[in-house]
């Protein structure tokens, strides 16, 4: 047995507020050299609050220990294999952190005049050009702060296009049943009606299924390619032709772009608009839930509708252009998550075109290897060559009372982060595994061994699987209690 999960020393740690001691001081505050005023004298008593009730009082070491201990309760890419499907948990190079921390970047103010931010605008321009090339599209906005905001922007741009053509009746969006939940939610935020397209038995979208839903009310098709089953949408180009013939546009969810670099350009598959998830494909840290960055690329035809401001390059100078009369408007306070998109650019420049093609090749190699090694132990719902991820189910284990959730929890005991579970929704009991290109053969083999051992345990001693996890700091949680009587903040009287 060579899996890497071991027990270890774990510290208990109370909440900040429970650790707090009246009168304890944290980091000292520098004095100022102007006269320190009494706020009451300046603002008047009526505007002033008293003490911030409950705010913690801690020493610097208290705080350092607190967060160091908390950090040790987390599973992370830096610590182990994290095959969370659709999230592309690849290595986050440390170099990118150094780049984002350069004083001229970290201290750049978003409202400084164009002359003062030539470096930032040059970096933005450089990234926009690279993303346009990768997508096979023409223009890019870096403003969306995450993939879901990118979807919102992309769908708004499509609506603006229809409106300009006086086709305001186009209020329907076709979305395959394999799609991420953000797709229908983003469409709804645009006031659009969702029409679900069922994928075929082979797990992909077929032109006839789309054609049957097409009419003059259809605004767009939202397609994720490869889809969430890890399958390339082989008919994407033909499907796009059909949508275009009916006057609709094609949106691509770029969450799975890690599988396409150097293999296929979305623009060549009839895609008109797409978003990138820089925190997935381009290696920026996921941060325990964010921040991400969700740039959107469009064909020239749609460039007039991009969010303002847009970056312009004129005679080696850059400027922010706020005058775009047909723009959908602004979606972010400033120019998006610059600290994140700068990291993504650093990654792109580190890899170059050959490196990007290589990463896709290895990501797909790893996913296919895992599928080949696991197919005898687990049910495979859709046959066919997979791209960057593969989907298994718990069908074989269910006979022994072991479910996908149990398998996921047992993986923790073996030292792995579980795959994405119960998604996509079209596969009952799905385990969606995305190894990424960064993992070595020996890591993949350890994971395979753990998965096979769990399958074996499910048959011989299922209680081992259903009682998991035992190694993490806490065991399975009472989610029902959390939802029935929500406690969403600490309160002093609760002790």
């Amino acid at each position, binding site marked *: 047995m060579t899996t890497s999960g071991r027990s270890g020393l774990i510290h208990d740690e109370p909440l900040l507020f429970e650790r707090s001691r009246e009168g304890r001081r944290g980091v000292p505050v520098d004095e100022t050299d102007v006269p320190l005023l009494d706020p009451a004298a300046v603002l008047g008593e009526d505007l002033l609050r008293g003490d911030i009730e409950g705010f913690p009082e801690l020493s610097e070491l208290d705080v350092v220990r607190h967060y160091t201990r908390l950090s040790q309760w987390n599973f992370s890419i830096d610590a182990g294999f994290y095959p969370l499907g659709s999230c592309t948990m690849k290595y986050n190079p440390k170099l990118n952190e150094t780049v984002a921390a350069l004083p001229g970047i970290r201290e750049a103010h978003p409202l400084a005049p164009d002359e003062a931010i030539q470096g930032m605008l040059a970096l933005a321009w450089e990234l926009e050009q690279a993303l346009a090339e990768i997508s096979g599209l023409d223009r890019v906005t870096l403003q969306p702060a995450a993939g879901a905001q990118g979807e919102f922007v992309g769908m708004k741009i499509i609506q603006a296009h229809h409106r300009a053509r006086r086709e305001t009746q186009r209020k329907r969006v076709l979305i395959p049943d394999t799609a991420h939940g953000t797709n229908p939610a983003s469409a709804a935020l645009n006031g659009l009606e969702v029409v679900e397209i069922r994928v075929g038995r082979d797990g992909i979208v077929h032109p006839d299924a789309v054609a049957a839903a097409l009419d003059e009310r259809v605004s767009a098709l939202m397609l994720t390619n490869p889809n969430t089953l890890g399958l390339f949408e082989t008919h994407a180009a033909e499907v796009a032709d059909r949508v275009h013939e009916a006057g609709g546009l094609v949106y691509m969810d770029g969450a799975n772009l890690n599988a396409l670099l150097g293999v296929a350009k979305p623009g060549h598959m009839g895609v008109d608009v797409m978003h990138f998830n820089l925190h997935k494909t381009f290696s920026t840290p996921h941060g325990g839930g964010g921040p991400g960055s969700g740039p959107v690329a469009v064909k020239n035809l749609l460039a007039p509708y991009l969010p303002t401001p847009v970056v312009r390059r004129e005679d080696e100078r850059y400027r922010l252009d706020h005058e775009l009369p047909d723009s959908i408007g602004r979606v972010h306070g400033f120019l998006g998550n610059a600290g994140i998109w700068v990291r993504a650019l650093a990654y792109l420049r580190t890899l170059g075109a050959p490196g990007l093609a290589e990463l896709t090749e290895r990501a797909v190699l790893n996913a296919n290897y895992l599928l080949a090694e696991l197919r005898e132990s687990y049910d495979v719902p859709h046959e066919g060559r997979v791209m960057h991820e593969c989907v298994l189910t718990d069908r074989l284990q269910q006979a022994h009372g072991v479910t996908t959730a149990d398998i996921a929890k047992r993986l923790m005991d073996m030292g792995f982060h579980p795959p994405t579970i*119960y998604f996509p929704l079209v596969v009952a009991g799905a385990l969606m595994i995305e190894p990424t290109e960064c993992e070595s053969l020996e890591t993949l083999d350890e994971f395979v061994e753990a998965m096979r051992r769990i399958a074996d345990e499910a048959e011989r001693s299922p209680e081992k699987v259903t009682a998991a996890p035992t190694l993490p700091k806490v065991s399975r949680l009472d*989610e*029902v209690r959390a*939802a*029935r009587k929500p406690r969403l903040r600490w309160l002093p009287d609760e002790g």
Partner: protein
Amino acid sequence: MAGKVYEFPDDCHYSESDEWVRVDGATARIGITDYAQSELSDIVFVELPEVGTQVEIGDSFGVVESVKAVSDLIAPVPGEVTETNTALEDSPEWLNEEPYGRGWIVAIEIEDLESLDNLMNAEAYQKYVEERSGS
């Protein structure tokens, strides 16, 4: 899977969307069936309509939620909501424990008693549940 045993009282009518209706004069109490609560598993929240709301057959009049699923409540009969079981807001678990008793959801003054004819009796609903849960 070996079929679970559900309770479907004879004095109720049943809808295809898994609500039960128990009629007393012109008033119908409505809830979700034993099968529905079992499929949803632990119910954590119920969204009730306001008293006085007019509903047509097929209207969504509320929502029940488990930790990871949301299910619309679909009106099986037309009429006006005359009472709601507000105790469920604090005790959603009653929907699991006593779906036909303390877990009732709304009372409706039925507009059209003939609409009950479109609902299933306990025996028909039992078959309907068995068909769906497969063998």
